[in-house]
């Protein structure tokens, strides 16, 4: 992310200030070095000055070293030494410049003094100011001026004789001296500012140049990286192109490039291998003119031509012919190639021979048909198994009813009535005497009455059994109808009363239950609403569950076999439990009890519970089994939704039906 212009300006200003400070600092250090040498030079010059001008002081004929020489050595060394050590101690500090200025002005004073106050030596003050101006710091000049002013003011006020040679000099005369210095400073100081500004401007320019260089470098770097990336991309594309060329050359597929009119411009070696045509033979022809034959689908050829005319691609699988006339199947992918203006300029066709695949598909299709036929047969068998299983269950009841009716007829009081009839026929002529006098005749009316009572009872029993028989036959019809409806994937939902359904299921198993003296009790909540479901499917489930419970009780040889049917509402669902105290289910078999073909019964098929569970699911509910183990009885819990909207769609039922079929 690039910084904003404002931020760039701040950075540039910081860079400029930093550059200026660095450059000015280096300049000051350079000037400091110069001043150090100047200090040493002035010291030597001061000594030489004093030796030249005033080597000795005389008292009559005797002489001694002049105080000026001593002053040049001692005072000069202290001034120069102080300045040198100060700038060496504080080389980068701004006050070093001011200390140097003070010492330089002191040197002016000393040299003036050593030269006997020569007016020429006074120029050293102005020369010093000029020298100090190379610091390019006007404040240094102010310091120098201040030293001159303070020196003259101090001495003018407190020691005028030393400054002006008179005792009663004006206390403001120092101002005149300071003013002359100030006069020069007034020119030098603007020069310093100007030079300083010029340096700053140079720094600004250098910063701009540096920034420009950085910008250019950055751009060069960016361009370079872009070029490197472009080169890498070019190299990648070249490698890809080479690979594509290899693919186009050595692939087993035909690769054809045509113009916009589908005239062949280029073919690969795969084309030559597959079709038998050489490249020279193929050029200029359209693929369909070159490769199509009698069995080529004309509709596909037309589709191909239409696509070419409309400049569109196409995918086709069609029969083509080799040069030797052999037909073969090809899968064709044709794609238009566009120029920069979007116009189609060429077509590229990739054609692969799919003869083997087509033949395999035909073979697979044949196998599929055979499989479908086998599945259909198997489905019919399974439907038949289901029908037979359920019908078999009902037929047991039918058989029981028929046996009861037969036994009833066989043991009927008709025989006795027949004997009464024979007795009446034998005594028909004197029937009155016979009734009045014969001992047998006297008992005949009462006997007839008894027989009639017995026959009445027998008729009632037979009628009941017959009704059961009819119900069971009706149930068989319904089973067949349900199986038919299942086969047709049609549901038969209606409003149901669970009480009636439970009764019907018990009734369906009545004969076998009574044969084995199984006590069936039902416990149905009173507040159960009517609900919508498939009566026959629900009935099939309940019949199966009761029948299985009976079988479990029989196998367990339970002394008091009983089946409890509990129906109640739980969480908006109908919950129906069929509990027995029979054989029970081993824990390891609980998970397998609903699998198709799994059974623990000696005569079972492993179909009933599987079928029941499937039907429960089809009804939108579930069927689960609970058992604490062998010998501890079993509970099958059927859960069904009260809400019709919870029922699965007919598609789901159709899937189930299809699944059953398959």
């Amino acid at each position, binding site marked *: 992310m690039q910084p904003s212009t404002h931020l760039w300006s701040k950075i540039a200003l910081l860079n400029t200030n930093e550059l200026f400070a660095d450059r000015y600092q280096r300049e000051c250090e350079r000037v400091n070095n110069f001043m150090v040498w100047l200090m040493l030079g002035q010291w030597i010059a001061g000594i030489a000055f004093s030796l030249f001008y005033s080597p000795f*002081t005389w008292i009559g004929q005797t002489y001694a070293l002049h105080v000026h020489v001593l002053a040049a050595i001692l005072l000069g060394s202290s001034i120069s030494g102080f300045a040198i050590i100060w700038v060496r*101690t504080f080389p980068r500090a701004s006050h070093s410049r001011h200390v140097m200025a003070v010492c330089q002005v002191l040197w002016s004073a000393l040299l003036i003094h050593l030269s006997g106050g020569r007016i020429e030596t006074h120029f050293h003050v102005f020369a010093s100011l000029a020298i100090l101006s190379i610091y390019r710091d006007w404040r240094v000049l102010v310091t120098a001026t201040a030293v001159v002013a303070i020196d003259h003011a101090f001495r003018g006020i407190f020691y005028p004789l030393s400054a002006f040679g008179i005792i009663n000099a004006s206390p403001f005369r120092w101002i005149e001296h300071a003013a002359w210095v100030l006069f020069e400073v007034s020119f030098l100081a603007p020069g310093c500012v100007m030079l300083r500004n010029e340096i700053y401007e140079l720094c600004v320019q250098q910063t701009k140049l540096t920034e420009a260089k950085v910008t250019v470098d950055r751009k060069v770097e960016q361009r370079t990286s872009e070029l490197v990336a472009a080169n890498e991309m070019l190299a990648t594309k070249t490698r890809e192109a080479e690979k594509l060329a290899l693919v186009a050359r050595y692939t087993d597929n035909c690769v054809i490039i045509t113009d916009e009119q589908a005239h062949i411009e280029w073919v690969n070696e795969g084309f030559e291998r597959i079709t038998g045509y050489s490249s020279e033979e193929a050029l200029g022809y359209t693929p369909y003119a070159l490769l199509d034959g009698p069995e080529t689908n004309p509709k596909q050829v037309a589709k191909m031509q239409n696509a070419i005319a409309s400049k569109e691609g196409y995918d086709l699988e069609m029969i083509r012919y080799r040069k030797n006339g052999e037909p073969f199947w090809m899968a064709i992918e044709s794609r238009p190639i566009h120029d920069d203006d979007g116009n189609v300029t060429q077509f590229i066709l990739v054609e692969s021979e799919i003869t083997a695949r087509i033949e395999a598909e035909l073979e697979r299709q044949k196998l599929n048909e055979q499989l479908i036929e086998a599945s259909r047969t198997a489905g019919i068998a399974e439907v038949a198994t289901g029908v037979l299983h359920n019908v078999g269950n009902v037929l047991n009841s039918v058989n029981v009813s028929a046996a009861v009716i037969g036994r009833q007829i066989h043991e009927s009081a008709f025989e006795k009535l027949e004997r009464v009839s024979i007795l009446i026929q034998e005594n028909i002529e004197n029937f009155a005497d016979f009734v009045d006098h014969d001992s047998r005749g006297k008992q005949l009316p009462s006997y007839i009455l008894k027989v009639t009572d017995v026959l009445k009872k027998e008729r009632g029993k037979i009628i009941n059994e017959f009704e059961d028989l009819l119900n069971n036959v009706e149930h068989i019809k319904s089973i067949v109808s349900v199986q038919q409806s299942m086969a047709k994937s049609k549901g038969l939902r209606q409003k149901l009363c669970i009480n009636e359904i439970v009764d019907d299921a018990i009734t369906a198993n009545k004969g076998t239950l009574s044969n084995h003296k199984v006590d069936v009790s039902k416990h149905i909540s009173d507040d159960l609403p009517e609900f919508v479901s498939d009566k026959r499917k629900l009935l099939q489930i309940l019949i199966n569950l009761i029948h299985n419970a009976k079988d479990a009780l029989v196998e367990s040889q339970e002394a008091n076999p009983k089946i409890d049917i509990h129906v109640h509402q739980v969480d908006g669902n109908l919950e129906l439990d069929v509990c027995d105290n029979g054989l029970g289910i081993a824990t390891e078999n609980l998970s397998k009890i609903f699998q198709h073909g799994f059974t623990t019964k000696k005569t079972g098929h492993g179909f009933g519970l599987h079928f029941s569970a499937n039907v429960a699911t089809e009804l939108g509910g579930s069927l689960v089994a609970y058992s604490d183990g062998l010998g501890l009885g079993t509970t099958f819990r059927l859960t069904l939704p009260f809400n019709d909207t919870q029922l699965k769609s007919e598609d789901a039922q159709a899937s189930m039906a299809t699944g059953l079929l398959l």
Partner: protein
Amino acid sequence: MIPKLNLFTLAFLGLTMLSSGWSLVDYSCRPGNKGDLANHLHRISGIQPLLSRSNSQSQTLLVFYHPHCPCTKATAVNLKKILGSKSGELETYAFAYCPQHESDSWIASALTSTLKDEIGATIVLDRAGETSAFCGAKTSGHLLAYDDQGALLFSGGITSSRGHEGECRPASDLLKVINRGASETRHWPVYGCSLVPSKEQK
């Protein structure tokens, strides 16, 4: 971290600078001794032979100096300027101190040449400083100006400090005197080497 040695050195040098500077200023500004001045020119016996040859209408300026005194060079420079601006007649005599046992050539120096050649003074050898002592001049650079009647008009040096040339009040006063601008005697301090041997200082 500033080295302590540097700080101590700076402090030492600063103190040295102040003390030696102050000593130098004090030395330079401390005037020399004066004796009993000769208030009338005719009372100066050593100068009478010279005066008898001169113009009796001109003023007389006596310069007492030590030929090798560096401080008196400033006096010569200032005197040269003053005499360049004089309007009346002035006879200048420069009394060059010469030790008792030295030859006359001992007085030959740049200062003597300046006084003689550039200022036009008559160089008078003052053996053992007897004349200067008689006139009360004990310090080199002491000037005595007399009017044409021989009365003392000016006494003292014409530099602001020891060996310090340039414009100053004594020089201006001398110029005024020799241009007959003042009637009262002016006395100024003298800065220079002593003309009196050390044993006679006191």
